[in-house]
């Protein structure tokens, strides 16, 4: 079990800056994020987009900002649990919190900070009959281990770059690759599309255009898919189906923790961004209060006020005196 002062759910800009603000007050942090990398929306949704409203940076690329924030947190040695979704939050008898993730990782902390942005990014699921029944039994929403498809027939669905890229990659591994796309063009990634059309021409990929997967069949494990295209209905046999329709943000398990929630956001007290549950704070895009603006710079401000308030749970016997970094510098935190 991981033990820390503050467990931060979400490693986007607000969560990362919270590490800095907490570190100044000698509080250790551990960040958990469902994405495999830090940076939240900055890295996942718009890494190459410029941001113009970070004070002191007339323009900064989103990924660059995430990298700079990581650099800024470095002296405070935060811990990271990435690629795991927080599932449960439990208050222990000694007043501390136990955070548990989808992979069974446990984090014990004195304070919980929810900096979950839009929520967890979950795969968009198409409307396919019996889809849920075969999840984990042939249906997956990401290609985690390409080797599992060696010698198998895999059907991919989607028209974005990940559907194209994986079709090309798996064409050399799987026994057979079928790509199903509801349109007849791939407008986002012309180079990858050209390669897919070439592979289809030489018979390495079966390409079904203007076609949808409508239902699945099998006894226990996926065995067949029913497609509907311009020539009507057809059945193809395959052991694997990977719908690749991108990710969409969902609030997820946070909804069930007893927090006051308004329109998928957590209500907070703007004095310190505390929630209705003692010891739990919410900062960044995930919170809501009168006048809320979903801006990174507002998340930074919220992180600073949160840290000042959270100090009382981590060091209940100490009095907090406010200090400027310009006067006192930054003291590295012992790991």
């Amino acid at each position, binding site marked *: 079990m991981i033990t820390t002062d503050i467990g931060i759910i979400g490693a986007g800009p607000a969560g990362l800056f919270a590490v800095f603000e907490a570190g100044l007050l000698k509080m250790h942090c551990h960040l958990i994020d469902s994405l495999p990398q830090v940076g939240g929306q900055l890295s996942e*949704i718009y890494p190459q987009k410029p941001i113009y409203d970070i004070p002191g940076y007339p323009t900064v690329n989103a990924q660059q900002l995430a990298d700079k924030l990581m650099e800024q947190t470095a002296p405070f040695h935060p811990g990271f649990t990435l690629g795991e979704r927080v599932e449960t939050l439990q208050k222990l008898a000694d007043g501390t919190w136990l955070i548990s993730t989808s992979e069974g990782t446990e984090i014990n902390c004195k304070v919980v900070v929810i900096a979950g942005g*839009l929520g967890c990014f979950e795969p*968009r699921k*198409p409307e396919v009959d019996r889809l849920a029944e075969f999840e984990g039994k042939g249906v997956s929403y990401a290609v985690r281990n390409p080797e599992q498809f060696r010698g198998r027939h895999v059907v991919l669905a*989607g028209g*974005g770059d990940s559907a194209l890229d994986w079709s090309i990659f798996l064409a050399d591994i799987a026994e057979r690759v079928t790509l199903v796309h509801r349109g007849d063009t*791939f407008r*986002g990634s012309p180079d990858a599309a050209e390669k897919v059309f070439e592979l289809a021409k030489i018979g390495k990929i079966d390409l079904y255009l203007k076609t949808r997967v409508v239902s699945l069949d099998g006894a226990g494990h996926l065995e067949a898919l029913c497609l509907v295209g311009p020539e009507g209905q057809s059945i193809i046999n395959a052991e694997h189906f990977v719908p690749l*329709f*991108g990710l969409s943000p969902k609030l997820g398990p946070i909804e069930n923790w007893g927090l006051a929630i308004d329109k998928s956001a957590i209500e907070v007290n703007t004095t310190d961004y505390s929630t209705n549950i003692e010891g739990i704070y919410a900062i960044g895009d995930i919170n809501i209060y009168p006048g809320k603006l979903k801006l990174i710079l507002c998340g930074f401000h919220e992180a600073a006020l949160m840290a000042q308030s959270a100090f009382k749970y981590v060091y209940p016997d100490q009095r907090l005196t406010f200090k400027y970094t310009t006067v006192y510098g930054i003291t590295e935190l012992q790991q």
Partner: protein
Amino acid sequence: MINFIVESHDGQHIPISVPEGISLNLMEVLKASDYDILATCGGMALCATCMVQVLKGGQQLASALDQELDMLDRMPASDDKSRLSCQIAVNEQLEGCVFKIAG
């Protein structure tokens, strides 16, 4: 005024009037009119939570750019009538159009 229609989930046609020269996109107008759309990415054509069907007048709108087309290609349930409302500028081209909020 620019006048267009939004079809509600139960099939009702609700007229919306917006002054000319307003610097807003359709997603912003729909949100301001209290329609239940998330628009989580804030208008960057990245989340597709503001998707609409253009039931009438699609051909009079400015064509979708690559990024919007890529996102629409990625959606499991979109067709030739689908657009991201955040990518539709509200101007005279919307006169008489009928939109339906997807989902």
